């Protein structure tokens, strides 16, 4: 794989936060991985393992304490404006603006991109239609159910036609039926758009189903296991990968228990 094929590069990235008492909290330690253009990577790890910190580093919302993060060859924190409309994010909770209707929420990124009103509303309406919400264009978020709100937030991320799509456990707050339905829709959208995608999850099944590649993180965020995923993997191999992921996660629990004085 040549360097130009690489969309995302994490090179020995560290990130620490200062606690209120002044001590440091290490969220990411020596994290290195790459993602090729058009790839769909599932990132798996236990709660609090630094997945979301990695995600914020990638989105350029925070900068690393050490090491480098490169997205399309640029620093996402320093070249913040350059990434306008190049990155779409689906968050764990919908993060809809309560004062904007469903249509206006979807059109948010397009409005920031200075797209004329008629054009952006037409695009937002198409997304509403595609996600089965065409009758709810003028509804405010409080009038929508959790699944509907999350669909609006997915549409908001896809509407800007991002090169890179980041999803941070977007279905974890939904019931199983709604989550499964949305997961399938999400996968279709990722395939259709061809966006390079990183999908954070703490569900092994979800990672196996969605990710063409799976990265397993351990606390503080560092890569401990990688594997191929997706529908192309045979069921026997899938069972083996699943067992290895479980072992990687169990080792972490063991490691944590041993460090308790």
């Amino acid at each position, binding site marked *: 794989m040549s360097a130009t094929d690489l969309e995302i590069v994490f090179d020995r990235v560290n990130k620490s936060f200062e606690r209120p008492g002044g001590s440091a909290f290490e969220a990411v330690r020596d994290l290195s991985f790459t993602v090729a253009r058009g790839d769909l990577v599932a990132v798996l790890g236990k709660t609090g393992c630094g997945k979301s910190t990695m995600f*914020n580093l990638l*989105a350029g*919302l925070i900068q690393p304490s050490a090491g480098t993060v490169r997205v399309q060859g640029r620093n996402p924190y320093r070249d*913040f*404006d350059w*990434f*306008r*409309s190049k*990155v779409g*994010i689906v*968050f764990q*909770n919908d*993060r809809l*603006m*309560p*004062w*904007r*209707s469903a249509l206006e929420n979807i059109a*948010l*990124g397009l*409005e*920031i*991109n200075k797209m004329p009103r008629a054009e952006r509303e037409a695009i937002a309406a198409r997304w509403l239609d595609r996600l*089965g919400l065409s009758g*709810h264009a003028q*509804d*405010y*978020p*409080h*009038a*929508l*159910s959790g*699944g*509907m709100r999350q669909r609006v937030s997915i549409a908001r991320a896809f509407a*800007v036609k991002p090169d890179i799509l980041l999803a941070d456990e977007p279905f974890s707050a939904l019931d199983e039926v*709604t989550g499964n*339905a949305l997961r399938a829709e999400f996968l279709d959208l990722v395939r259709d758009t061809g966006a390079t995608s990183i999908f954070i999850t703490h569900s092994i099944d979800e990672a196996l189903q969605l990710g063409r590649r799976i990265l397993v993180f351990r606390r503080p965020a560092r890569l401990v296991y990688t594997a191929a995923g997706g529908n192309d993997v045979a069921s026997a191999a899938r069972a083996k990968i699943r067992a290895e992921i479980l072992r990687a996660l169990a080792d972490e629990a063991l490691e944590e228990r041993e460090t308790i004085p």
Partner: protein
Amino acid sequence: MAEAPVRPTTFRPRLRYEGWVSIAGLAIAWQVASLFFPHFLFPSLVEIARHFVAIFGAWDSVADVVETSARILAGLVGAFVFGSVLAFLMGRSESFARYVYPLLNFNQGIPALSWVVISIIWFKGIEFRIFFIMVMTMLPAFSFQILDAYRSMSKDLLEMTLSFRPSRYDLIRMLIVPTVLPGILTAWKVNLGNAARVVVVAELVGATGGIGYALLQQQQIFDMAGAIAWTLILVVFVLAVQRTITVIENWTLRYRPAAERTV
């Protein structure tokens, strides 16, 4: 994906009759009192109404009403503008806030009457005196309310908006203004009553026109009916502005579910 949406709840402003019943009760109690107490203590409602109508029959009196209304609105706008600037600067810079916050707290402890005396000594022009008094007395409330709304801005929404890389102007327009708007409207409603009280004190002591000055004249001739009539005009003005703010609030905050506003 058969998922039932939450039914939208819409806000319907209603004219409540309870308020009118209370006011009617108060009027009846006053009228009964006027039958048993001396005229200079409790004048009849008819006499008060006669004074009320008379105020609108003379240009000088109307000018007093307009003068006071303009002073209240100018003071509110001035305090709002300065208060907003201070609030945003404090919100943006913690070190600035550490210097300014204690000054605003200190200001909170200064009575309106002290500002009246200070402004009379400091300034010559009546209008500037009153504007100064209004701004100084209402500035902390505007600053605190807006700063509080600014600081309570959702970190989740901020991160989400930033992920689209908005310009500073877009960030203010799309996120910050809608976030602080409820706080701004509350500050206006709270300060409106204060403004009416302060302007009367300021006019009473340091002006030669306006409702406060008219009240001073009524006191000098011991005319309770006139004092009540002038007071009622101020109350009506405050209620009218209050109603206007409520209409603006209902329109701008129409996205809120009705239940939030009835709590």
